[in-house]
């Protein structure tokens, strides 16, 4: 029976090619636009570190002066160097890491290659395990390296290839801002979408290329890169006691119970600091998991969201349009429907027959819409945004395109099919 309906649908399309093409195009454009924007949104809003995002927490404290404090106001985004080093030293979480972005000039040993700048991260030993950084060779550095200001570094695969032409570089040294650092590890290609651990960096960009222990970076006076907020004048904002917030502090906690305990610990820490005279405000701590942190910082660009809504609105109009066109298409065939009903087709048979027609349009629209979505994403990939290269149709999105098209057309077909099957056999057959 289903093949019969398919055959009838095919004949019906041939009979009125213009109308069919119109409906297919409407669905295709609506689906194409929606899938393009939804894919971009899916890329931007997806969990950056699935499986671990619930266990990584961002720490916020409030060391600023009493003047300007309002109860309930959010503390600053970043931490002071003093707080960060103290909490990392306390070691009360499963793992903890402090970090900041940086820039450094790298002088290659290869002749003919001029010095160039790379973006780097100055952080502590736990960083690599916490964020699941994949190693191609070697490993991260140790806590002892942190304590000893060791002259070590972890480089990205790209940087290794650029400097040495190979990735087998563990043990070799690289001159960073004039100082040779020994390479202890090489990272494989790594992309977190977004780089949530430091939202002041290029969130959807390619990532950092050079990792150096924070303590070492201070000794070598490596330049930092990112936001800095000083609430008081500081002769040296990067000094240990400076009244400046510029460090990101992340901890790993295996369960919600541990998270609650750690939050308690942060409150006690704030009270201790207040008693010691460093803090001026009552305890105002935040411990946000990755999803909470991303939501709080509203990471997904507004424009991406807005574009998705617009595309969906367009799809809705296309859907209503299709409902109207299908309705006229089916009602035009009242005579045929009436005959079929008289000859013994039940209402349900007619309903299914018409719905199959609608579904076929959806399928055709889905194929075309897929092409259009692919085209749309191609356009997005050629925009100079940092997430451009991520805009591709993966398998789930591909399936979603067809699903969207077929579901849309079936929804559109419901009302017309129902009206079509209501055609009473008697009235239509009166020849006058």
């Amino acid at each position: 029976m289903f093949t019969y309906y398919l055959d009838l649908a095919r004949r019906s399309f041939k009979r009125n090619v213009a109308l069919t093409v119109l409906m297919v195009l409407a669905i295709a454009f609506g689906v194409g636009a929606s899938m393009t924007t939804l894919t971009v949104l899916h890329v931007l809003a997806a969990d950056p570190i699935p499986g671990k995002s619930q266990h990584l927490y961002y720490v916020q404290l409030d060391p600023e002066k009493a003047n300007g404090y309002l109860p309930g106001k959010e503390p600053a985004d970043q931490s002071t160097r003093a707080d960060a080093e103290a909490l990392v030293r306390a070691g009360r979480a499963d793992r903890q890491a402090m970090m900041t972005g940086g820039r450094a000039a790298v002088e290659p040993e290869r002749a003919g290659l001029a010095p160039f700048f790379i973006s780097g991260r100055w952080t502590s030993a736990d960083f690599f395990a916490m964020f699941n950084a994949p190693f191609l060779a070697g490993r991260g550095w140790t806590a002892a390296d942190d304590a000893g200001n060791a002259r070590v570094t972890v480089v990205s695969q790209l940087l290794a290839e650029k400097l040495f032409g190979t990735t087998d570089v563990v043990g070799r040294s690289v001159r960073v801002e004039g100082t040779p650092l020994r390479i202890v590890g090489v990272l494989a290609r790594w992309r977190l979408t977004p780089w949530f651990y430091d939202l002041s960096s290029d969130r959807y960009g390619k990532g950092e290329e050079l990792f150096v222990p924070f303590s070492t970076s201070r000794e070598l006076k490596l330049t930092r890169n990112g936001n800095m907020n000083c609430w008081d004048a500081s002769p040296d904002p990067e000094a240990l006691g400076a009244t400046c917030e510029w460090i990101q502090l992340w901890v790993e906690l295996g369960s919600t119970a541990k998270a609650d305990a750690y939050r308690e610990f942060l409150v006690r820490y704030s009270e201790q600091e207040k008693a010691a005279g460093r803090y001026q405000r009552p305890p105002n701590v935040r411990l946000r998991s990755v999803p909470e942190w991303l939501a709080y910082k509203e990471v997904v660009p507004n424009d991406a969201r807005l574009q998705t809504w617009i595309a969906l609105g367009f799809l809705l109009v296309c859907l209503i349009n299709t409902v109207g066109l299908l309705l006229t298409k089916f009602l035009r065939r009242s005579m045929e429907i009436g005959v079929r009903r008289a000859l013994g087709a039940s209402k349900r048979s007619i309903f299914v027959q018409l719905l199959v027609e609608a579904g076929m349009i959806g399928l055709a629209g889905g194929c075309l819409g897929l092409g259009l979505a692919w085209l749309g994403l191609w356009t997005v990939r050629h925009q100079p945004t940092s997430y451009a290269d991520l805009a591709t149709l993966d398998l789930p999105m591909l399936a979603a395109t067809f699903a969207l098209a077929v579901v849309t057309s079936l929804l559109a077909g419901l009302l017309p099919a129902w009206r079509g099957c209501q055609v009473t056999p008697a009235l239509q057959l009166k020849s006058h």
Partner: protein
Amino acid sequence: MHFMPILSSLRRHRTAAALIAIEIALTCAIVCNAIFLVGDRLARMDQPSGIVEDELVRVRLAGIGKDRTDASALTNQDLNALRAIPGVKSTASADQVPFANSSWNSDVSTIPDDPAPPVNGAMYVGSADLLETLGVTLTAGRDFTPDEYIEFDAMQTSTAHMPSVIITRGIAERLFPGKSPLGQPVYIWGKEPQIVVGVIDRLARPNNVKPGAQDYAFVLPVFVPYTIGGTYLLRVAPDRRAEVIAAIDATLNKVDPSRIISDRTTFTEIRKEFFRQDRSMAGLLVGVCAALLVVTALGVIGLASFWVQQRTRQIGTRRALGATRRDIVRYFQTENFILATIGIIIGMALAYAINLWLMDKYQVGRLPAVFLPFGALLLWGLGQIAVLGPALRAASIPPAIATRSV
């Protein structure tokens, strides 16, 4: 024209009529908001920077190795060398430029230690020729004098004191509405206030901030060496920018080859890059509007054609009874007008609802009332154009149809 018979006929075909009315309503609502957003983006893209955009070239650079104690001296040497390039009118060192996506900001208040400062503005600092190089317009007061400048390192101490500040008209109107800000103290940095010595008409901020705060910027007399700000600005005759850019690397390397020059662009490029996103968004919105209008027009044509076919006999009968072709066309035009009106009324309400939601979620402004007549005219016009084809076809139905029996 007789509305009542048309209305009752529509009531008998209310499903199809409702569908077209809803489609028109949705299109109206989306198009109105989309055009409004386009206007919003265009206004944003149009905002004046306050500087001489077509004469500015920006150089980004940094040094290798730490702690150049002679950074300030080197900076001055650089600026002098750059000024000597033929075509360059003036040079300056700076911390940031408009539309370049960085943000050195600071709170500004009229009282010291203000717990809730009314203004947070972009902080521009740089060498003595900064204002002249940028080409900003001073509407009141004066530029800084050389002795008012302090070094950047001095700014970081707790006893730092900058005697004066130049503010934009935006800050002046916010902090000192109705009176002249010249000579007034403001508290930006350090324990001592800064005295307002000049007012700039406009100086755009480096990044997008919420509406209202867009006009807040100020300049402090702090000398910023290249190791801190990493930015040199050159004011060049517009037609000589390319040749000047070509000469920059050689000039700076001659002064000291141990720097890496990462960028040399015209401000025109910087501005274009900054608004690229807005441009593409505007383009997308226009595209969607066009597509929506086309889809709706086709829907109208489809439905009208169907109704013409359904009523063939009725139309023939009317013609046989004395209706002219024009009367038939008028009938369909009126019917379409009624449907469009219903759709537009719903669409306007929907447009405002959508606008309220956009205002809440995406900080856009309120939809101005002028969009009502504009949207109405657009959709009335669209409907009438779309229905013309089927209406003319209806008009050509011969009266003889009336007497045919099948």
